[in-house]
């Protein structure tokens, strides 16, 4: 099976992605990750104003069968989280790079992006 890995994103080897627009980083989990987890039923991520730190666990995503920690690809202050996931956690399975995004942070240090994987390298990792 092959999984979608959009070119415009940066990836963490623990399967989170980040998309940066004007200093704001939107974070989610990859197509591969949602498939591994199966039916997502619960998402727990920090509220607006909380800090996340690159490489640290910032929340969990739970499927019917498992709990999985979420790791921050970048550091920053949470500016928004995807409220739709509270009632529709399945968006994470249906559209992991779109409507299934997790949260947005104001980037603390743009140079952290250099430590992340590009789409090709990430695709190689999950191949």
């Amino acid at each position, binding site marked *: 099976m092959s999984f979608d890995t959009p070119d415009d994103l940066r990836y963490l080897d623990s399967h989170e992605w980040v998309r940066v627009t004007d200093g704001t980083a939107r974070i989610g989990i990859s197509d591969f990750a949602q498939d591994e987890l199966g*039916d997502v039923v619960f998402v727990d991520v920090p509220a607006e104003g909380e800090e996340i730190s690159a490489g640290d666990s910032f929340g969990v995503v*739970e499927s*019917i*069968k498992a*709990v999985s920690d979420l790791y921050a690809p970048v550091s920053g202050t949470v500016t928004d989280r995807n409220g739709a996931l*509270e009632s529709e956690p399945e968006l994470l399975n249906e559209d992991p790079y779109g409507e299934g995004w997790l949260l947005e942070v104001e980037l603390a240090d743009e140079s952290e992006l250099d430590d992340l994987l590009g789409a090709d390298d990430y695709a190689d990792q999950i191949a």
Partner: protein
Amino acid sequence: MALRQSPLADAHADRGAKTTDFGGWEMPVEFDSIRAEHEAVRTAAGKFDVSHMGELLVSGPEAAELTDRLVTNEVRDRSRGEACYAAICDDGGVMLDDTVVYHLPDGWLDGSHLVVPNAGHDAEMATHWRDHRDEWGLDATVDNHTESLAMIAVQGPEAPALLASEIDDTSAAADSDLDALGRFEATVVDVAGVECLVANTGYTGEPGFELLVPWDRTTTVWDALDCQPCGLGARDTLRLEMGFLLSGQDFDPEENPRTPFEADIGFAVDLDTEFVGRDALARVSDPDERLQGLRLEARGVPREGYPVTTPDGDPLGTVTSGTMSPTLGEGIGLAYLPADLEPGTEIAVEIRGEGKEARTCATPFLDR
């Protein structure tokens, strides 16, 4: 050690199933999605490969007596074609496994008794049976057929009609046999041309059957059952919504030794029969702790090992099984809790260090 393989392993791989190690067997955990498979069984029909279940054939003049003395339920007086659920206990009344025991119909494996232990328990239980046979000097033979009999469950409101449609016209009597088959009754019919033992049993709470199939004909029967294939993931959410026990998880002689009364299956214990563990059980029929259902009122999912406390945080027990119920859309679980707690008691489940509001409840979680 290499994992044991179902006769359907290649078919499952072709179908793209994800597999897992279950009791030493490589079995499908998910074909499409747990939710889709779960819903198919609750609303239509699904088929499960449960070839990991053990099959011990106990035959000979004293087969019934031997088996009767090794399980908690009454076996000896059951007619041919009758089955029962039972626990297998040690001398102290601790459950080693749970099982369904069939008194086989005439003409199928000589009408002996068939004991069906859980995945990975077949060799241990065969030894348990043989050791007691020798100790008691009974005339019985114990053969392990776990890798010559496969098992397929077909479950769901549409399962009876689906199975009936695959029963060969030449065995015209068989169709009506299926209709007349009571709960925990078994009969022999041809399914897609393969002679199977069909039992009105299951692990989902839905109407349906479990089929014992000759190992080398399993693919024929599996392919003929035209419905959603389901893996162990859906099997677990379905059984948990019914509050059914999972051996090795809700009880385990090493990790979590429990009596059948604690596990809330006292209905499967007949203290009027003589069996290993009977005397110990007679003294503990009113246990201090009992397996109870719980429903999370906060958002979240109870999982195995999570602490259960009072709302103030005083320890009460530990979750043995938990999931997000696909049918109810809320977190449900089982836990050994003080037996005097009434259903509806406010409790808390500690999830990642935080007490989440929950209540005890009666099982099954669904009306079925």
